[in-house]
């Protein structure tokens, strides 16, 4: 039995001023499921995550976590951002323990071990590399044993190798702890590597919801993997087939076919 939350998003709408960002979006995520959300920038991905975390309020509709509507920040939910957002004036271990009470130090140390940074606990953030900073941010999110982990393009700024390393790390910790995970990414390969399902968000709505039936760990060389990536990319790019689009975009499409 998974300890992840059951997440239901019901006819969710959000607008900022006159700009409609999400429109009647509905999505169900089972406990312990790993869902990857892809979409172009500006499609409302980040807003969706901020709504789920309680940092923003919906304009209409609602979000149910284990059947309870989200009204404020929820301790069962943790979020990780594209930038690590660490406190430069605290040491690594203090950053991990931010917001913990009681016997936080041993917990934080254990979590640092999980992300492979046990020996850097007393370092300042300034000496860490970008990948190490993201691992500290991951440890900070994991230390309170969240039941829902929201990942807002956390690997977007990392180099290709560090990225693959981080994907494996996130996958193995998720398999071990079975929290529900929502990953936002603009990298379709990453989405297919990690997601049980890949959801495509376009103009504030779900336009594709695809099961990924591959066994883990997944390999990029696998033909089914490649076909799935292709299918999703094709779906994203097919919007460009409207007549107004320039040649370059349709060239790209022909090439990708």
């Amino acid at each position: 039995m998974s300890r992840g939350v059951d997440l239901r998003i019901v006819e969710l709408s959000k607008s900022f001023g006159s700009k409609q960002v999400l429109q009647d979006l509905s999505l169900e995520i089972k406990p312990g499921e790993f869902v990857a959300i892809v979409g172009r920038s500006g499609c409302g991905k980040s807003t969706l995550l901020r709504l789920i975390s309680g940092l923003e309020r919906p304009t209409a509709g609602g979000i149910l976590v284990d059947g309870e509507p989200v009204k404020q920040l929820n301790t069962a939910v943790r979020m990780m951002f594209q930038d690590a957002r660490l406190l430069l004036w605290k040491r690594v271990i203090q950053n991990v323990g931010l917001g913990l009470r009681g016997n936080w130090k041993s917990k934080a140390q254990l979590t640092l071990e999980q992300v492979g940074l046990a020996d850097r606990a007393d370092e300042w953030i300034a000496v860490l590399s970008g990948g190490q900073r993201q691992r500290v941010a991951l440890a900070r999110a994991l230390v309170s044993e969240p039941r829902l982990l929201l990942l807002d393009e956390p690997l977007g700024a990392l180099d290709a190798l560090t990225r693959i390393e981080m994907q494996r790390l996130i996958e193995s910790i998720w398999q071990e702890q079975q929290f529900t995970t929502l990953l936002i990414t603009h990298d379709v390969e990453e989405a297919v590597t990690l997601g049980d399902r890949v959801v495509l968000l376009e103009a504030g709505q779900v336009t594709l919801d695809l099961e990924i039936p591959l066994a883990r760990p997944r390999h990029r060389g696998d033909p089914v993997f490649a076909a799935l990536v292709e299918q999703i990319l094709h779906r994203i790019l097919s919007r460009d087939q409207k007549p107004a689009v320039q040649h370059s975009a349709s060239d790209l499409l022909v090439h990708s076919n």
Partner: protein
Amino acid sequence: MLKSLPVNSVWVRQRDHLLQVRWLRGFFLPVVLLVGWECLSRLGIFPPNLLPAPSAVLATIGQLAASGELFAHIAVTLYRVAVGFLLGGAIATVLGALTGYSRLFSDLLDPLLQSLRNIPSLAWVPLFILWMGIGETSKVALIAVGVFFPVYLNLMSGVQNVDRKLVEVGKAYRLSDLQLIRRIFLPATLPAYIVGLRSGLGLGWMFVVAAEIMGSSQGLGFLLVDGQTTGRPTVILVSILLFAVFGKLTDSALATVGQRLLFWQDSYSSQTH
């Protein structure tokens, strides 16, 4: 990750080495100028009634020190700067933090303070003398006004520029308001605040001269006027020299405190402490 330790220690050694050389470099030009000045004075090219030799200035310092007069002047000036700095700095800290943190206070207070800032601070002199007389109060008040604005401005913009993303993290991790201020706002604002304190102190030294020239019987600024009216250029130079020395010393002291507090900013230099 494995490489970082040896690389760090090499860095530290190089920095130390560079620092020593640069210290010496800073002394090079002043020494050359002083020697040249002394030579030209002895050759009679600089008239002693306009530009006395460095040795004559040193001799005057010796005389003033022997009579105990010098220390009295230094003490009075330091006292005025200190009180003015503390007073102006304290008020600026309270108001800067309020206007930085709260929109309401910023809307209420900032326009007024910004327009007062545009009054050249020396323009307050006649008014302060009228209100508070020619004694200590008006001098300290003038210095405090000088110190106030840089501290206020830097602190306010420092608080306003605290990364909202970090504040969001703090909220997402359920820090209380007090914890948010202590763990995020205070440390994030400190660099700007220290810059403000240092430029405030600089202005404090500027205004103590103005305050002491406008009427006093003691202090380094009084030595300036005294030297001028009694035709003793050595006394003027002694005063200028001492202003330079104490201005630099107090600024360095503040910079050192700042560095200690901001150890996290530059991890390399924190490793050398």
